[in-house]
């Protein structure tokens, strides 16, 4: 069989502890976003739209829902005869085995998987970000520049640069230095955690890294610095567009709110760059005469009888009479009773909110309240913050 020019490896094993109880039972890439999606829909749809039809998904933490969700990849058109999507959990071998010890180790342990496609380039992705990106354009840049590794970067505001991994480049975009969370940043080009490597180069570095007992087996901490140390050619590819890390409860909430703008930076209605997802196949949403809906994203299967203001509502949600949902994200199948008030909150899948409950704090700078016990029936009042 012909080889694959580029194979994507999607790191989806992270726990995402800063999402608190949202990731108690599911891996971070499976967390819900935008009224319909899970985070992993974005990198997988980007792959399909970029013409990359072979994706290994490296799982480790709480993989049950993620495995079920990915299935054979049909939702993203990744059910292929040669290639397609493969879920790659840690496994045992004759000479032993164990958990993935780091991002580089996860790829190293799957050399066999990559070898069977004999790719020229490998695209490393993470399942933590919301963005639409043409990886094929980045691959073209990588090939034209003849780089060993190309790292996608985005300009961040200077005052925030010390929160990111910063790439210092020369005038031609060649990376000269990598500063992880620098106190005094010399550049504002932050790494997006999207890398393209020449496979022959990466393979050797992974093998060497595995033999190095002092290595933490991490791309950012070990692989990239060793390439730089060897004066390999690393190029920065500047991405322009919406890119958001949704690693915390607040940033997840903010990213959802971003979609409610009249012309959001992340356009989900773009026919030329569809974000695919598993479709729940429910009837159209019903907006009752008693409902007031303003500035909202609402998915199918919802029955809205109360007031929705500036909120994102996933599928199968019921909101009863005289309830008010404001500045909030309501995940699938939540049932909200009568006379409920919800402000600045994220309500997890399947929660049942009893009549009269008051959730969240309406003041604009307050913490986002997270109601995250799936299927819980709440007493008629819920303490703010979790």
């Amino acid at each position, binding site marked *: 069989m012909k080889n694959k020019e580029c194979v994507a490896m999607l790191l989806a094993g992270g726990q995402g502890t800063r999402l608190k109880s949202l990731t108690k039972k599911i891996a971070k890439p499976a967390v819900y976003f*935008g*009224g319909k999606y899970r985070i992993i829909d974005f990198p997988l749809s980007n792959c399909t739209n970029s013409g990359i039809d072979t994706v290994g998904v490296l799982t480790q933490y709480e993989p049950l829902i993620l495995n079920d969700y990915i299935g054979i990849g049909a939702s993203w058109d990744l059910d292929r005869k040669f290639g397609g999507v493969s879920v790659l959990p840690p496994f045992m071998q004759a000479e032993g085995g164990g958990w993935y010890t780091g991002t580089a180790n996860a790829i190293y342990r799957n050399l066999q998987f990559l070898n069977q496609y004999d790719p020229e380039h490998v695209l490393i992705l993470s399942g933590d970000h919301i963005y639409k990106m043409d990886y094929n354009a980045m691959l073209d840049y990588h090939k034209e520049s003849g780089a060993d590794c190309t790292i996608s970067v985005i300009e961040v505001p200077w005052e925030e640069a010390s929160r990111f991994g910063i790439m210092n480049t020369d005038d031609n975009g060649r990376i000269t230095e990598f500063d992880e969370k620098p106190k005094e940043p010399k550049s504002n080009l932050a790494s997006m955690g999207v890398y393209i490597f020449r496979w022959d180069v990466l393979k050797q570095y992974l093998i060497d890294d595995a033999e190095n007992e002092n290595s933490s087996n991490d791309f950012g901490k070990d692989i990239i610095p060793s390439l730089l140390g060897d004066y390999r050619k690393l190029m920065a590819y500047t991405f322009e567009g919406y890119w958001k890390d949704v690693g915390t409860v607040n940033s997840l909430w903010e990213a959802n709110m971003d979609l409610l703008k009249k012309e959001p930076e992340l356009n989900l209605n773009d026919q030329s760059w*569809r974000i695919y997802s598993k479709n729940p*196949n429910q*009837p159209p949403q019903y*907006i009752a*005469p008693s409902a007031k809906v303003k500035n909202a994203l609402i*998915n199918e299967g919802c029955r809205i009888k109360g007031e929705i203001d500036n909120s994102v509502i996933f599928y199968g949600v019921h909101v009863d009479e005289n309830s008010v949902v404001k500045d909030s994200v309501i995940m699938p199948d939540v049932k909200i009773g009568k006379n409920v008030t919800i402000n600045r909150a994220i309500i997890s899948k399947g929660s049942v909110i009893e009549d009269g409950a008051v959730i969240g704090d309406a003041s604009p700078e307050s913490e986002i309240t997270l109601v995250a016990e799936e299927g819980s029936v709440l007493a008629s009042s819920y303490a703010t913050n979790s």
Partner: protein
Amino acid sequence: MDRIAGIINLDHEQDLLDELTYFRCGAAVPFGGRYRMIDFAISNMANSRIESVAVFARRKYRSLMDHLEQGKAWDLDRKRGGLFILPPDWNDPTDISRGDLQHFHNNIDFVNRALADYILVSGSQNICNIDFQEVLSEHKNSGADVSVIYTKVDELYPEFNLAHKLDVDGNGRVTSIHNDHNNKNVYMDMYLISKDLLSELIEQCIAHGGSHFFLDGIKSRLEDLHVHAYEYKGAHALINSVESYYRNSSKLLEADEHDSLFKEDAPIFTKVKNEAPAKYLPTSNVSNTLVANGCVIEGEVEDSILFRGVKVGEGAVIRNSIIMQRCEIEPNAVLENVILDKDCRISEGRTLIGAPEKPFVLPKRKSM
């Protein structure tokens, strides 16, 4: 478990929905915000564990085939069985069959090969949510040769004039089938029959020069066949005219009707479109309306149904209307009692008002 195979017989269905059936058969008419008429029959079959379904298509079936694809949406993309779309194409030189018997005769292989003991035959115009396994168990208890499915209607709407009616005795046996406009036992164009008897009756009908299997094989043989009547009691609509289409679409806005048609344990499936959730902007004002995904609403919508991907501009007003997929209503347009077929565009400030009893219908891809 006895297995059932399904046939959706569109052969005799007339395309009476005016502009909506100019370019498509009735089975392919969009309904209920995201469905097509045929989704109900085919989902009912899929939910009743029917794994082989044949569609007897006769006319204007392009959009029907586009919609059904390989049956993936209904889990009918199978290695064994699955979905068979069967347009008219027959080459048997000895064939003397006529009417829908042409379909039965030329596609008899479907019946013979189906991994089933019973065949459920249905049209596409009766919207309902029915469990055919229940029909089968009642059929077997009754010891009948054929079970026909009917419903008792509360009100005699004009669309029922085109349907057959049943007289049923105390044991549930059908004593006569006729067109009496005052009979409220409306036949739902669905029957269950054993595979062997179906094959036998097809042969007999053709030998006698018949042209309509139900009329010649069942209706005219009530004396020598035991025909049982199965009464369906859930939500029901017969859609065979613009008037019945419009009235029954509005009925979906009633909670009871809606919930008994769209059940959680027996969902109606349809082809997915991967649309984003519907978006409501600050200027929107929506009331008593079904809204499908992909819509972007800046105007006012009341007592209406919006299909997938409809755009409603600021200041536009839509009342008592059905707006199909990807229509664009520009700012300050006013629509009342209107049905817009797919891809229509209403330009800024235009007003279109139909009569409540006779909606104004705009055909596909029209701009005004």
